[in-house]
């Protein structure tokens, strides 16, 4: 009942085309197309005690704005205290169908107690109230978790603000970093530094490990890397080129592209190493494998029909079927978390753009509007796609809603960035 009230409110929020009023320097949000509907919400400045090092409510606001699902109602600059109770009718009169408020208070032990409440101003009741006690270093994460709860309460879909992304930053011609950052591109941490290129980072499905291709030994070698410990080892370092790692959902097997026969073919290999077993058999190129969530289907890129197209094969080795038919260049496929959609890069009239294919209907939607877009991957809630594009000759990261109506650019990462991959929900 309550969910319905909010969803009805969302449905009546009206067609909006304006950029949300919140325009922070670190992000740019574009809302395009007609019929974009945004839920009007006010996030009141949180009460702060003990000088918290993060502006929690600002992070919540930025997250919700970036999603494109919300229109932020101006809540002024004065913190809204817990007492007296907020005048929900007044907030409703200002145009907010929901109000979030909270406190960030330093405790005697140095941790922070973060509390927030979410009110439905239409039904005039509280719909969420949570408290988190965390060290100062985790205040950003808590802000993202709060944004996740608000997003889920008001849209019915889990938020992805507290998830992480990986990408490669090139800082100079001989300085490459594999960086892990929050989903907004802020708070980057280097998992690997190298003089040589790094490409194709792939998350294990539990988010604890990465596989990637590093050229540090003057050839492409696939590594597996445990993030918390920094332990890593070469998983595939065979004669020739080793590339395009993809984790099976169970974390025990990876698909990789090897050149044991001279040409590039797809193999399965145990996550602990061992002898690879060949999956595809052509004299041409088969690469960029990606497991479907069922673990039994592998999507990949193949030139068996001439130019590169996306195919799928049932494991351990059925007859591959072609999946993409529009255009003469479709590459880099990744399935959605529910397995119903596929995102990939398609060249259309000379422009490389991110496509989303509904596998059941065959309906293809172009969701990016630039021309050199690469490496798309779904958010763990399946609602957005993260991809690499270029701006002013520099690689940048962007997200697009799966219907293409909302696009944002992540301005957090510094340097020339590329090869993003959106990580899973953290357990």
């Amino acid at each position: 009942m309550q969910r319905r009230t909010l969803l009805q409110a969302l449905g009546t929020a009206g067609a909006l085309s304006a950029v949300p009023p919140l325009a922070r320097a670190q992000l740019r949000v574009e809302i395009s197309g007609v019929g974009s509907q945004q839920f009007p919400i006010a996030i009141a400045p949180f009460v702060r005690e003990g000088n918290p090092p993060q502006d929690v409510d600002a992070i919540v606001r930025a997250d919700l704005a970036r999603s494109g699902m919300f229109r932020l109602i101006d809540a002024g600059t004065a913190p809204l205290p817990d007492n007296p109770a907020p005048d929900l009718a007044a907030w409703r009169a200002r145009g907010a169908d929901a109000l979030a408020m909270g406190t960030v208070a330093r405790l005697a032990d140095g941790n922070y107690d973060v509390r927030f409440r979410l009110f439905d101003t239409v039904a005039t009741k509280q719909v969420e109230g949570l408290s988190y006690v965390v060290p100062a270093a985790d205040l950003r994460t808590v802000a993202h978790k709060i944004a996740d709860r608000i997003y889920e309460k008001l849209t019915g879909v889990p938020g992805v603000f507290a998830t992480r992304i990986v990408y490669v930053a090139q800082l100079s011609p001989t300085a490459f970093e594999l960086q892990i950052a929050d989903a907004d591109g802020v708070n980057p941490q280097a998992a690997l530094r190298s003089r040589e290129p790094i490409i194709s980072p792939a998350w294990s499905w539990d988010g604890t490990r990465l596989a990637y291709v590093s050229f540090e030994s003057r050839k492409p070698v696939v590594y597996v890397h445990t993030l918390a410990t920094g332990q890593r080892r070469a998983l595939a370092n065979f004669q020739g080129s080793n590339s395009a790692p993809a984790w099976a959902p169970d974390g025990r097997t990876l698909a990789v592209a090897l050149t044991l026969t001279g040409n590039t073919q797809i193999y399965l290999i145990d996550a602990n190493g061992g002898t690879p077993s060949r999956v595809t058999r052509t004299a041409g190129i088969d690469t960029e494998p990606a497991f479907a969530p069922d673990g039994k289907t592998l999507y990949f890129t193949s030139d068996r029909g001439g130019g590169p197209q996306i195919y799928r094969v049932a494991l351990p080795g059925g007859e591959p079927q072609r999946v993409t038919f529009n255009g003469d260049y479709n590459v880099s496929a990744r399935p959605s978390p529910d397995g119903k959609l596929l995102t990939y890069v398609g060249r259309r009239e000379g422009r490389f753009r991110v496509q989303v294919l509904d596998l059941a209907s065959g309906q293809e939607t172009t969701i990016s509007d630039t021309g050199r877009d690469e490496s798309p991957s779904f958010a763990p809630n399946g609602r957005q796609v993260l991809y690499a594009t270029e701006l002013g000759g520099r690689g940048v990261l962007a997200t697009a809603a799966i219907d293409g109506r909302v696009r944002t650019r992540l301005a957090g990462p510094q340097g020339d960035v590329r090869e993003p991959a959106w990580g899973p929900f953290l357990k």
Partner: protein
Amino acid sequence: MINRTLATIATALLLAACSSVPLDEQKGVPIDDKSKPAAGATTDPAAQTGAVKTVDATGQQTKSDDPTTGLLARRSIYFEFDQFTVPEQYKPLLEAHAKYLGANRARRIVVEGNTDERGSREYNLALGQKRAEAVKRALLLLGVTEVQIETVSFGEEKPKAQGSTEEAWAENRRADIVYK
């Protein structure tokens, strides 16, 4: 006072209820039980932020000692757009290297394939491999033994020419012979 122990149950009841909750009951508002980790609110910093330990792989580079006399100094084979066959003009160059490798059976080479920057990095890696393989096959026909040649690809990752011009792209559609 906030009733922490009944928080989860109270939240569930509140969410199930269709009637509105009077705002003057705010003091009894459900807040997650802080005595145990709330869902997604652990206080373990490693689990919370997913600590990342940095690995430094910026080690020293190996030096090559390529033979540099005559045609052996030329070690690059350029390819046309979307082409993977060795152009006829490189026959003398390949013959010179084949002769040297034939006389020096202990020498090993790596043929490094490269592509221009357009398109998927992984697909370009596979295309670069195709170029390297084409050079390898030509050298095998000229008597070089299989064990002397490894083919690898850099795809678009190590461009010799920077920029997004036709000239830069042509410079980067290339296979290089590198002596180990």
